């Protein structure tokens, strides 16, 4: 089977599965109702993006054998979403550079492991510049130090002062913890490919004292709550919820990363990461619906940054890495939920991962002029 055929077959598998298991309809069979859409659009729109990461394969998520790992999305989210079965990432499959590409709508070529800003303008810069929004209106909650430059590009027409504010919860926690703890360094684990590496911070990362001033959270409360959590992604969701309550940004980007433990070669921990992320995505939807600033006016977009290598690709080692660039590692999915977005609909046509930024641009009213993608017409 040729790569494109493989990709198409992946999409078909997802669509058939979703249609049977969740009772959703095929997108091409659903007629659009402009009246319903107009009535449901609220003022003061907000967008939350969750990257379902880092890197999850089809067979552990929406393929029939993966359904046991995503029960919350299947039960609570899929019936309310427009779902795209084929989102193709044609760029570099490293988590930082791929997330940066998602955030710019252009395939970035920066060093995945260096502390560098994206070269193309980010979604946050487009939004803030076009709509004249303050920095407090755009936030990124990201795994740790490696993502600290994701909020603002080096682009000469945008860049400095126009980016998002970035919170690195693990970094924040490390700063809050007393020194000398034996397992302290584990908290700063940035990526599971090189688990002992922690890059130096340089950028406009969130400062510890802002916990209290912005998030209304004492260091002791923060530490106390962290002790009840089981993973860095749970900490990210906790911080995101505080942000939503205290700052209510219009554009919030949350990068999940627990799943990337797969690099250690432990399948059970990889699947556990997927199940946790599935639960956290469902929790985010509940948070959106329970927060007055977000309920009824928020578009939630969930997508993996990319997949992982296929079991039968001799160049890889199955789920462990994303190094081959094979069709499975490049083909993922996208879920969109919110006012004006059709519910329970599946689209099988291929979209590009760079389409995300221009799509959000159409929702929020900015132009992503340097993006390589196009708005996804079924969402906007």
């Amino acid at each position, binding site marked *: 089977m040729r790569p494109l055929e493989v990709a198409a077959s992946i999409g078909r598998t997802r669509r058939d599965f979703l249609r049977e298991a969740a009772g959703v309809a095929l997108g091409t069979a659903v007629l659009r109702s402009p009246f319903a859409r107009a009535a449901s659009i609220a003022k003061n729109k907000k967008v939350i993006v969750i990257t379902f990461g880092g890197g999850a394969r089809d067979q552990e998520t929406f393929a029939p*054998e993966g359904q046991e790992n995503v029960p919350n999305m299947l039960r609570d989210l899929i019936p309310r979403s427009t779902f795209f079965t084929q989102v193709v990432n*044609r760029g*570099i*499959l*490293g988590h930082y550079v791929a997330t940066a590409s998602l955030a710019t709508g252009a*395939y970035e*070529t920066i060093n995945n*492991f*260096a502390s560098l800003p994206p070269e193309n303008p980010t979604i946050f810069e487009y939004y803030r510049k076009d709509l004249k929004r303050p920095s407090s209106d755009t936030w990124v909650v990201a795994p740790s130090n490696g993502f600290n430059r994701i909020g603002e590009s080096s682009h000469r027409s945008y860049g400095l002062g126009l980016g998002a504010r970035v919170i690195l919860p693990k970094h924040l926690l490390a700063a809050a*913890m007393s020194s000398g*703890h*034996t*397992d302290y360094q*584990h*908290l700063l684990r940035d*990526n599971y*490919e*090189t688990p*002992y*590496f*922690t*890059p130096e911070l340089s950028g406009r990362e969130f400062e510890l004292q802002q916990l209290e001033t912005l998030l209304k959270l004492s260091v002791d409360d923060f*530490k106390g709550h*962290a*002790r*009840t*959590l*089981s*993973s*860095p992604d*749970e*900490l990210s969701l906790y911080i995101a919820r505080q942000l939503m309550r205290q700052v209510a940004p219009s554009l919030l980007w949350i990068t999940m990363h627990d799943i990337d*433990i797969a*690099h*250690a*070669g*432990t*399948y*059970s*921990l990889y*699947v*556990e990461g997927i199940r946790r992320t599935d639960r956290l995505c469902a929790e985010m939807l509940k948070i959106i619906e329970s927060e007055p600033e977000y309920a009824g006016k928020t578009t939630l977009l969930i997508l993996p940054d990319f997949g992982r290598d296929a*079991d*039968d690709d*001799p*160049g890889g*080692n*199955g*789920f*462990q*890495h994303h190094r*081959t*660039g*094979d069709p499975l590692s490049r083909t993922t999915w996208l879920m969109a939920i919110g006012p004006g977005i059709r519910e329970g609909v599946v689209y099988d046509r291929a979209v590009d991962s760079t389409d995300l930024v221009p799509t959000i641009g159409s929702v929020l009213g900015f132009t992503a002029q340097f993006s390589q993608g196009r708005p996804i017409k079924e969402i906007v």
Partner: protein
Amino acid sequence: MLPSDLKPEHFTSYPPRARALASEYVATLHDLPLSFVSGLLRQVIDCDYNFPAERKALERELKNLAGLSADQRAQWIQPFASITLSSKLERFDWVNSPAQFVEQLSAHLWTTHQLDAFRTAATNYADRLHSAVPPEQPIVPRLGIAIIGQGVDSYSTPLFRKLRPHGAYFSHVNPENGLNVLLDVVADRARKHPGDYLHWYVDGGQAAEHDAAVTSLSYAQLEPVRTALLQKMHSEIEKPGMGPEMLRTFMAQLRPSDLGVSTSVDAILGRFQVRVLTEGSGTQIFSTSFAQWAAREALRRAEPLSLLARFAPRQRQKPMSELLAPSADRPELDPVGSLVDADIGAYYNWINQQRLPGADKSAFLAWFEGHNVAVLIGPTVPRGTVSDAPTDMKQLLSWIV
């Protein structure tokens, strides 16, 4: 420098056998593009420490390339010649550091969106090579064995779900003496079909007593090496400017003597052990990753006739709440999580065995250690079948060996 500039004296830093091989084929290397030659030299420079199977395959490949006419060679290699490289790559010391070059080449291919073209070129070349120089068939059908679930008393979730469609599932296997029976069959094959590195036993824990004719390595045996490696990794990352790629390069350059591995008895195996720990992600920390990766690399490189991989409990991954709690206890084990890891590891062992010549005649057995369930795969075993009939390990083996 480009491949056309190569001379025998460029290989003076190579180990003896590698130097001789590269010099013998230097004229052939002249005609090859750098994106191809670097991969070839990466294999050549290591050939003194290659297993017999991979050394023979390399020599056959070089001989084939040398035997092609200039036109034929150009045709074979043309897709690689179409890959554009940067001047920085061309200036790199790719003769003496081909592995590091290939890492940089990989980053270049990703960045310049040429990875797919390179993949296609490599796949087509491999297909062509297999047609022109068919791989040697094994002298007897291969046998793979995976033993999983050590230390798990009970587990209700179905096992071997990915293997079952390819063979028969047995639910009433008498587990008595199962490990010894399986080790004995490997030893028996080693005696009947002797050869260097043809019969392997990989253990993710403490190795059980086994025949000396079998090549073996275990996670427990390598504990001092793992400790030494982790210490070196920690000290390296403390150095200013150290990044992940530099750390990877550092690890790739480690030699057995750097980690206290003796090579006086077996330099090839010593080098292999170090490679498993320095190149395998997670192998230094999790015993299940070690067992899977060691088995994979043994299959890929040594092409053994028999390989028994026994998975053992790995250390438990601590949740964040425990990482924050002050405790210096030794890591606990996670037998059930390890069983899940090993279940997919057994599947990967089978896939990797099936990539080798003679796959249509190969046999595979996976067993939940100490329990009644096993899967048997082989040319005479009906696929996707289930047997509830009482049986034992010897009977299972009699159907495939």
